[in-house]
């Protein structure tokens, strides 16, 4: 007991000291909390992004408080219903956030200064169906393309293919060399075939936004040639897939590529950080190769993450100040560099330290951008369009389903519930 007493006294004094120090801080300091599912990004927010903001606005303290990605939607809903949600809310794209806005949990942000830095594609993920009200500030997108093993390309004397003919010729050459698998993609998890296959090369065929909007208006159908040919092209990949690709899962594909056992990886830019850590070779990236006869290139620059304001926050002024800062160039630069592979959706010119990430973002200057065509409006009913695209794309890649039939199945499913608004 005698030994414990001094220790307890020290503790008590320490606690009192802390309290006194807190009390001596400026009284008007306000604390904002950010709700997010990105607990992977915690260090970037804590060490880089938020200190930069708080240096500029010392009277606002911002806390990044993430939950696990799988629990985020449910946890956030419960918090908002109970009135305990954070002041700033990280927004999932499309229907999940739209539902929050419709319930009155997210504040409209049309008049926020700085929103003019975001184009229509960037806003599309967080806008009401009538296109009138934006309710989140777009933060970042992911870009699709192909990442390749530079050492293998050098060894075989290959250059980045620009057309589909060149792409297939390159795959042929890699296959003949026999040392590595030409393409690292499998069909076991299904979503890669749709996301890294169909949505990756597709925009070149349906002309990006033009085709996506036409699908929503009902003027184009999946049975049109510009969609069927995407599946035809995917079917041509089959000879170049690793043997046993039917049971190959997403992590298998990642490992195949980073271990240097595959030459080309149909990718999303979110892989960059992981590949940087694991791959021991030079990496490069090229845009989806152009189909015969095409001159303009289109890329999928898919909106992924945004941030909005809790409509019931007790500090709306400070929350808006933070959001205005998020629209600025400083945030764009810090975020895109802190998380290579996630690119700012604003029109600020930024430079990235990671050359591979810089390659991806440069494509925005030469190609037109679009988002995945199944995400807005078209996946609200059953059968779910996104799930159907996963299934048929994997089947087409395996050769179990002819492309024309895949197109028919998808369109029939969509027609069952979707009524285009003219």
């Amino acid at each position, binding site marked *: 007991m005698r030994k414990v007493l001094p220790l307890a006294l020290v503790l008590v004094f320490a606690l009192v000291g802390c309290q006194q120090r807190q009390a001596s801080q400026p009284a008007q300091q306000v604390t904002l909390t950010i709700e997010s599912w990105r607990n992977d990004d915690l260090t970037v927010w804590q060490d880089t992004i938020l200190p930069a903001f708080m240096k500029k606005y010392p009277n606002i303290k911002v806390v990044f408080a993430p939950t696990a990605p799988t629990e985020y939607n449910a946890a956030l809903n419960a918090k908002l219903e109970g009135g305990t949600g954070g002041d700033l809310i990280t927004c999932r794209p499309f229907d999940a956030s739209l539902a929050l806005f419709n319930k009155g949990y997210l504040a409209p942000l049309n008049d926020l200064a700085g929103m003019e830095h975001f184009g229509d594609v960037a806003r599309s993920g967080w806008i009401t169906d009538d296109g009138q009200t934006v309710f989140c500030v777009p933060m970042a997108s992911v870009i699709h393309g192909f990442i390749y093993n530079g050492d293998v390309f050098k060894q075989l004397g290959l250059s980045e293919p620009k057309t589909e003919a060149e792409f297939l010729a390159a795959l042929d050459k890699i296959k003949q060399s026999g040392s590595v698998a030409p393409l690292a993609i499998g069909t*076991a*998890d299904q979503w890669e075939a749709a996301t890294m296959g169909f949505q990756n090369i597709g925009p070149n065929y349906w002309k990006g936004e033009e085709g996506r909007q036409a699908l929503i208006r009902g003027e184009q159908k999946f049975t049109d040639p510009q969609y069927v040919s995407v599946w035809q092209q995917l079917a041509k990949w089959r000879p170049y897939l690793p043997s*046993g*690709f*039917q049971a*190959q899962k997403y992590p298998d594909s990642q490992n195949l590529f980073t271990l240097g056992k595959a030459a080309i990886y149909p990718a999303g830019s979110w892989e960059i950080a992981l590949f940087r850590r694991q791959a021991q070779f030079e990496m490069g990236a090229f845009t989806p190769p152009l189909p015969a006869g095409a001159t303009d290139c289109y890329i999928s620059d898919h909106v992924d993450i945004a941030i909005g304001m809790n409509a019931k926050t007790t500090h709306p002024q400070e929350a808006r100040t933070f959001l205005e800062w998020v629209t600025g160039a400083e945030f764009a630069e810090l975020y895109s560099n802190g998380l290579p592979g996630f690119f700012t959706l604003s029109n600020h010119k930024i430079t990235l330290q990671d050359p591979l990430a810089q390659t991806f973002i440069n494509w925005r200057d030469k190609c037109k951008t679009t988002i995945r065509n199944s995400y807005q409006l078209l996946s609200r009913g059953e059968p779910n369009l996104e*799930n159907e695209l*996963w*299934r048929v794309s994997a089947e087409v890649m395996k050769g179990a389903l002819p492309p024309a039939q895949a197109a028919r199945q998808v369109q029939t499913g969509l027609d*069952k519930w979707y009524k285009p608004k003219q």
Partner: protein
Amino acid sequence: MEATGGRGATGSLPHRMGTRRPFPAHILVFIAPAVAIYTVFMVFPLFDSLRLSLYAPQGGGSVFAGLGNYVRLLTDPLYAPRFWGAVRHNLVFFAVHMLVQNPIGLILAVALSSRGLRGRAVYRTLLFMPTVLSFVIVGFIWQLILSPLWGVGEGMMRLAGLGGYFRPWLGMEGPALVTLSLISVWQFVGVPMLLFHAALLAIPDEFIEAARVDGASGWMTFWRIVFPLILPTVGVVAILTYVGNFNAFDLIYTVQGALAGPNFSTDILGTLFYRTFFGFQLQLGNPTMGATISGAMFALIMAGVLLYVFVWQRRVQVYEL
């Protein structure tokens, strides 16, 4: 493990009671906690889920729809093929367990209870070990073994001269379900083995010795003496397998994901329920249709259990040992 032992229903109860004793009230005290917990966590959710299946969402709320959801599940061109497909896959899953798991379990049990076997406890423990492993571990181990990229499966088959027969089974529409069923058999073969083993131990040695004295061969002894005596256990094992298989979900979900690929070829009622109730990726959850599927599962399992209780248990002869 809801099924109770097979003997209770046919075992003879002493009906003749001497004097009428007052109802022992203290029994209520002992039963009450179990009844309360069971009611709160099992009975109430079950009936509430059945109630939910009678409603359909409309506008912001929901309206009473009678059996409309069940009609939709069985006839709608969207739901019916998935539902019947899942039922068919469940039956295949069950058939593989009945044809492979339970016979192997019986053989292992007979081998374990043979006299003169050394290290019985070691074998028993080893064979039962996979059962106590988590589904996630079992799914992961077998995915790795069968992986065409890094798996040891292909190499081992090549050693046996069967390398040419290796295929990426888990990714192929035909073999995927059977492969998964066999993985599940590997995991759970210990359960029928232990049940049969216990039943075999209960058979007095005199019966078998008497048969041998009478000149019966080992084969004949098994089929004429041993098997009829463990028949009640065969019923218990069958119904446990049925209930377990129709409630299966974890293994398929860990190995093939909620979409139960390739092309829904491994989709069983559990995964169909999960996708429908909780939603998947961009597909939003539909609690009422999900409850309808779980209602259908309940009906199917109930039908199997009733069949067991009223047909099998009444017919099967139980010998007093």
